[in-house]
């Protein structure tokens, strides 16, 4: 058992421990949850160094039998693509524990139990190397989120929770069918061996096969991202979810979709991915602009942030489907940025809600005088979200734009419009909430940040600055992995599908020569 197994096991053990605590003592549940999630975070930091040195190979691999027949393996490992997402999940879980400290006052024990179970599912999704195991973790993460929204959410929570569950489930079942189809063709669920088979030419998927399989995976991922027009569950889920639920949903859970695209859909079905790329990019660009425009007219803060997520994730998808190094790097970086900055936005909106008990923008005004520190933190987060240079989102968006410009300059133009629009709605939001007349209620109720709230916000703000200025810390392992993935998709796309095995080697060499140049 290596470190990674421990990181998966610890929150699971924490889940059971919290579940078995007595109901009368909510403090114990909070304490245990905080201790466990912090411990997991500290442990997961130790994953980073080895992966940083070599991001393109899988590290901390455990490959053990789980079910003999059908051959399902417990195969986990982490590389440059997964490492930061794992860290994002392990970082945000303690943040969520802190955020919910006061906010969640009923059925505390269950809340923290579900939060830890969610952490297991999320980490599992980012490290699973067996398609079946991936699916299991994918579903495991679904159930606690359903409860987080359904039990601790706002008025229309049940509607939102069911909608969230049904959308995701409808997609993922089709993905399961595709996974089983692949198993039927190859006799293995193992992602690495599947990839090896594809590379060696042992597994040749015909064009219609690839297209259908790609669509099966893609729809599951696109719902999760969510890509326009499959996004309608997201605003409902965000608005109704408690703060911690929103943070986990926006920051980590949506990344399951984009991660799946990069990890599975691209390398396994390169031809189909390239064939559909054009259409997907169009959807992504529509998402960028549509999300921004709709965000602009939202009267509800959470809904505004939710639609801004649709817009930001459009960037990620756009970056992925440019098939360029810059675009992919930008996309992965943007996943992390969005996780940090939108997570922080939800966190701060949650703070405002705790004070004023309203999410309507019209109920606020002049918060800057009542709570200067809160306003400052919000300002930094908002600027990061807009994509101001020196802050994290700028790097990601810039890389995506560079990548898209290499392919088709029109894409860049449209995507850039999204950036401008994001500045409009964010600044306008800030102006309406933090400046202007201070209503009586705001003056009475809104107080400045408390130490516990600082503790949750500071790491996120620090990361925004860090990721915006010292990209070297984060980008190298990601780039290494992305180069690998790109090579993979190029190699296979060159031969399309029916090429004789002999031609494969020659073209691979050609690509390597091109790379070397």
């Amino acid at each position, binding site marked *: 058992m290596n470190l990674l197994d421990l990181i998966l096991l610890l929150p699971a053990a924490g889940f059971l421990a919290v579940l078995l605590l007595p*109901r009368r003592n909510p403090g114990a549940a909070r304490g245990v949850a905080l201790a466990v999630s912090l411990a997991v975070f500290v442990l997961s930091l130790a994953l980073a160094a080895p992966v940083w040195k070599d991001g393109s190979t899988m590290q901390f691999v455990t490959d053990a039998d*789980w*079910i*003999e*027949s*059908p051959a399902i393996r417990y195969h986990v490992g982490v590389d440059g693509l997964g490492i930061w997402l794992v860290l994002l999940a392990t970082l945000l879980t303690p943040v969520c524990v802190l955020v919910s400290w006061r906010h969640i006052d009923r*059925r505390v024990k*269950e809340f923290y139990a579900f939060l830890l179970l969610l952490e297991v599912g999320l980490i599992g999704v980012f490290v699973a190397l067996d398609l079946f195991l991936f*699916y*299991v973790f994918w*579903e*495991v993460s*679904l*159930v606690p989120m*359903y*409860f987080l929204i*359904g*039990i601790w959410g706002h008025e229309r*929570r*049940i509607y939102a*929770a*069911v909608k969230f*569950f*049904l959308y995701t*489930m*409808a997609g993922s*079942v*089709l993905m*399961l*069918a595709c996974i*089983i*189809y692949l*198993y*039927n063709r190859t006799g293995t669920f193992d992602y690495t061996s599947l990839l090896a088979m594809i590379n060696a030419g042992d597994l040749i998927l015909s064009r219609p096969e690839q297209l259908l399989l790609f669509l099966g995976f893609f729809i599951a991922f696109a719902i999760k991202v969510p890509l326009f027009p499959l996004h309608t569950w997201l605003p409902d889920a965000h608005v109704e979810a408690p703060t911690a639920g929103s943070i986990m949903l926006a920051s980590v859970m949506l990344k399951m979709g984009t991660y799946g695209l990069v990890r599975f859909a691209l390398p396994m079905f390169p031809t189909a991915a390239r064939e559909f790329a054009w259409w997907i990019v169009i959807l992504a660009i529509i998402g960028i602009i549509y999300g921004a425009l709709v965000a602009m007219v939202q009267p509800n803060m959470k809904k505004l942030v939710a639609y801004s997520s649709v817009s930001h994730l459009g960037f990620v998808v756009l970056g992925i489907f440019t098939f360029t190094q810059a675009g992919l790097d930008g996309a992965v970086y943007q996943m992390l940025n969005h996780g940090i900055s939108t997570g922080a936005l939800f966190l701060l909106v949650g703070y405002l809600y705790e004070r004023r008990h309203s999410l309507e923008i019209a109920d606020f005004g002049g918060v800057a005088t009542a709570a200067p520190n809160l306003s400052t933190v919000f300002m930094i987060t908002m600027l990061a979200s807009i994509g101001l240079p020196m802050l994290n989102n700028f790097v990601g968006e810039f890389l995506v734009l560079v990548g898209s410009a290499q392919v088709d300059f029109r894409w860049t133009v449209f995507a850039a419009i999204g950036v401008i629009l994001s500045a409009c709605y964010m600044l306008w939001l800030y102006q309406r909430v933090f400046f202007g007349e201070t209503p009586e209620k705001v003056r009475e109720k809104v107080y400045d940040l408390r130490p516990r709230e600082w503790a949750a916000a500071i790491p996120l703000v620090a990361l925004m600055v860090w990721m915006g200025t010292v990209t070297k810390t984060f980008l190298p392992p990601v780039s290494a992995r992305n180069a690998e993935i790109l090579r993979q998709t190029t190699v296979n796309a060159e031969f399309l599908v029916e090429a004789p095995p002999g031609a494969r080697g020659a073209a691979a060499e050609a690509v390597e020569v091109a790379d070397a140049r």
Partner: protein
Amino acid sequence: MSQYYTSTDHFVLIPALMLALFGCAVLLFDFLIFPHPKQRKWLIVFLIIGEIFTGAGLWRQQSFLSSYGLNELTAFNGTLTIDGFALFFNWLFVLLSVLVAIVSYRYLEIENEHHGEYYGLILLAQCGMFFMATGTDLITLFLGLELTALSFYVMVGFLRTQKRSNEAAMKYLLLGAFSSGLLVYGFSLFYGLSGSTKIVDVADALAAREPGDPLVVLAMAAVAVGVLFKVSAAPFHMWAPDAYEGAPTTITAFLATGSKAASFAFLMRIFLGPLESARPTWEPLLIGAAVLSLFIGNIAAVTQTNVKRLLAYSSISHAGYILLGLIAGNETGLIGVAVYVAVYAFMTLGAFLVLVALRRRDLIGEDIEDLAGLMESSPGYAVLMLIFMLSLAGIPPTAGFIGKYYILLALIQTGHYTLAVIAAVFVAVAIYYYFRIVRAMFVSERKETAPLASTFGIKVALAVSGVLTLGIGIYPDPFLRMAGFSLIR
């Protein structure tokens, strides 16, 4: 035909003998030895002893088969066959009967009903199930089916003074007897086509006929309709919601699991035996029934407010999934059927057992609203029910997922892609109504009610079904090996 009752015959028959013997003995002991109401608990002990003897008989048969490396052991001139298939299902029946019996005591007390007949009928019904899974002759199969059905008619109407119960019994009886009539008419044509009642001979005779022979088609249609009635597949499912809702909940649990499993064993014996050669003819028929079952079961369940009725519709949809495994028909599919039937039995039994615990003197406990706030009042039951619901919905890592996985795999292996997609899509629909129950338990506010009627028996039975449902999902290997052993060929 040299000897009428050989030692092999006896050896094969022991489990059924034990069941019949103990079944009748329980009936007698009820008033001969345990006349006092307080002594009725001993009847359960007596039933368990009977099951232990039955299990011992099965165990000896199993070790006999494995020690001599035999695939099957036939008796009574080919009328009964003990093979992996029969043993797998009989073990399932033993487990289900014991679990149902041990939860029934408090329920019967609350309903103020007799005990002796109840336990006797459980054993006799199981005796019928033995013949349904073991019989390889039209006569034994038919008698097994009827013995099971007759016992169930009585058990469904066991609450004689309640309108709902005897109405359910009446509907079940009328449609059950009707379907038996259809079935046995088909059997008479089988006999006419082959001149024998042994399913091996019938299979040979039917295989020798041309495909699409009108007599074969007529016989096949009559038998298929009769069997589809028994497994409550649409469009022959009308009795199931009524019978499930009106029957005593413990019996509903037994009906939904034991009787259903036995009916599927019966169906496999017929469709993979005599009718295997007519596969091209019945395949479209079963595909239609399976898809319709998925559709009706899942759509009708969405609007139900009574949990028993909801689970009845869900069981119709599960019948559709099981039929899909049979339609795929390859090795994975047939293992899948065995896996699915057993897994379905465990999780459905568990769900009904929670309802049994909800039945209190002042509360029927069958509406979804009665489950409201269960997480606060009795978290243990709520978590178990959650596991059963997740499993019924087919979410990993629960047993229900393994079942669905096998069916999907088999469909894809045999190229039934459209069916696989349909089956997958209905999983999403099913989640909606299973989660209505979950929602009630976890999200809705608690109502002030009396504590649950939990007894030691209910706790044990729930623990067993919960452990099986979760255990098979997390570590399915041993169970899958057992199911693989059940393959007929």
